[in-house]
């Protein structure tokens, strides 16, 4: 039984450490905020200029001057600070954010990431994704293991235009978890009732298998 979106978000939340400053991308990564383990205190960064992002406001209390990078209304916390976009990306580019969790269209076995553009389709822009993957200390991708047409998304070389080269440190997909280091990719966890051969069938990238799974 493959993992659900919530399962993937819960698994990603295990990568959080006490005191981390974290940037969560739009979509499934946003759900990670719902699964922060007890006793782990993290501060969420929103790249439009905020550290210490709080939950959605109560009905009737939304403030048009207070949105996240997904343009959703949010709230502040008692640790919050605001700053300009230049200062925000100085923080990101300068390596001060501990962890970024984001979605992907394709990831290569060397950790290349493609998540912003499909040639021939209308391009909306890369937003802050290229800055985040270039600057943040650890980059975790959450994605469906295969595209809707069944094709592999974890592949030898990305075919879509890249967001960054050699930037992904971990993939959490619906079938399991991969670590990517300079030595290549390693499958380190499996979703329930998913076998190693299931994963191999659905993956184009080369990967090793952690000995605990054998």
């Amino acid at each position, binding site marked *: 039984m493959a993992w659900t979106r919530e399962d993937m978000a819960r698994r990603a939340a295990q990568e959080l450490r006490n005191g981390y400053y974290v940037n969560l991308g739009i979509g499934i990564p946003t759900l990670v*905020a*719902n699964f922060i383990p007890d006793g782990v205190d993290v501060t969420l960064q*929103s*790249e*439009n*200029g*905020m550290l210490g992002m*709080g*939950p*959605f*406001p*109560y*009905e*009737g*209390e*939304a*403030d*048009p*001057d*207070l*949105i*996240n*990078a*997904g*343009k*959703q*209304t*949010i709230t*502040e916390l008692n640790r919050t600070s*605001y*700053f*300009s*976009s*230049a200062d*925000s*990306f*100085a923080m*990101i*580019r300068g390596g001060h954010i501990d962890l970024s969790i984001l979605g992907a269209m394709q990831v290569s076995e060397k950790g*290349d990431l493609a998540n912003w*553009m499909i040639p021939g389709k*209308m*391009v*909306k*822009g*890369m*937003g*802050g*994704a*290229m*800055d985040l993957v*270039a*600057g943040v200390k650890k980059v975790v991708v959450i994605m469906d293991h295969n595209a809707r047409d069944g094709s592999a998304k974890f592949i030898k070389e990305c075919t879509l*235009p*890249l*967001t*960054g*080269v050699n930037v992904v440190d971990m993939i959490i997909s619906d079938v399991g978890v991969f670590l990517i280091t300079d030595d290549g990719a390693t499958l380190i966890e499996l979703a329930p009732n998913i076998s190693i051969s299931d994963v191999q069938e659905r993956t184009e990238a080369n990967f090793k298998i952690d000995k605990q799974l054998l």
Partner: protein
Amino acid sequence: MNKVYNDAVASLNGILFNGMTIMAGGFGLCGIPENLIVALRDSGTTNITAISNNAGVDDFGLGLLLQTRQIKKMVSSYVGENKEFERQYLAEELELEFNPQGTLAERIRAGGAGIPGFYTKTGVGTLVAEGKEHKEFDSEVHIMETGLKADVSLVKAWKADTEGNLIFRKTGRNFNPMMATAGKITVAEVEELVEKGELDPDQIHTPGIFIQRIIVSKGLEKRIEQLTTRQKNSEGN
């Protein structure tokens, strides 16, 4: 030196010309100079190069200038919210230069700070790096990006004093402070104008030296793009 103008139209008088480069602050529809954008549209200025993180929505923000075809080129990081933009771009009626958001922010800061070029890791190995100078620092490849300036910058602040000292509010700050420094002329639209001495000098985000003209917003809409809320007594977000 009186910097305060009666309204948006008056504040743009004499500084607009066809083919000019404009910077407009804001992230999505948050912290955009609403009155100034409408006045720029009504001025009829054409062939504008607009540097702005986003392109507004169809009927609000910079989208108003797309409707009237006054914009020749956009320099942005994300334009996903605008159907008319998509139509013009696919019909090749509009030029578009995408910048990674942090690179865009830094290029604008650099333009205002007398830094004509800088190196960044962002975009190395991607389409963004094509044609740009590459250089290694500590055995890591970086690309050179250049500073950006504008003929006129239009920014939105929360409060100003009559000297042009500005304070922004929450995430309405975004691109506004850097753009204020990168315009040959910068016009600030503010919600509240106070007398000199009423702002704490330690708490001024943009010193008045960067602001040549000031107006107070009239009929601000402050539209919310994605209203997301939770119920009282509910958990999570």
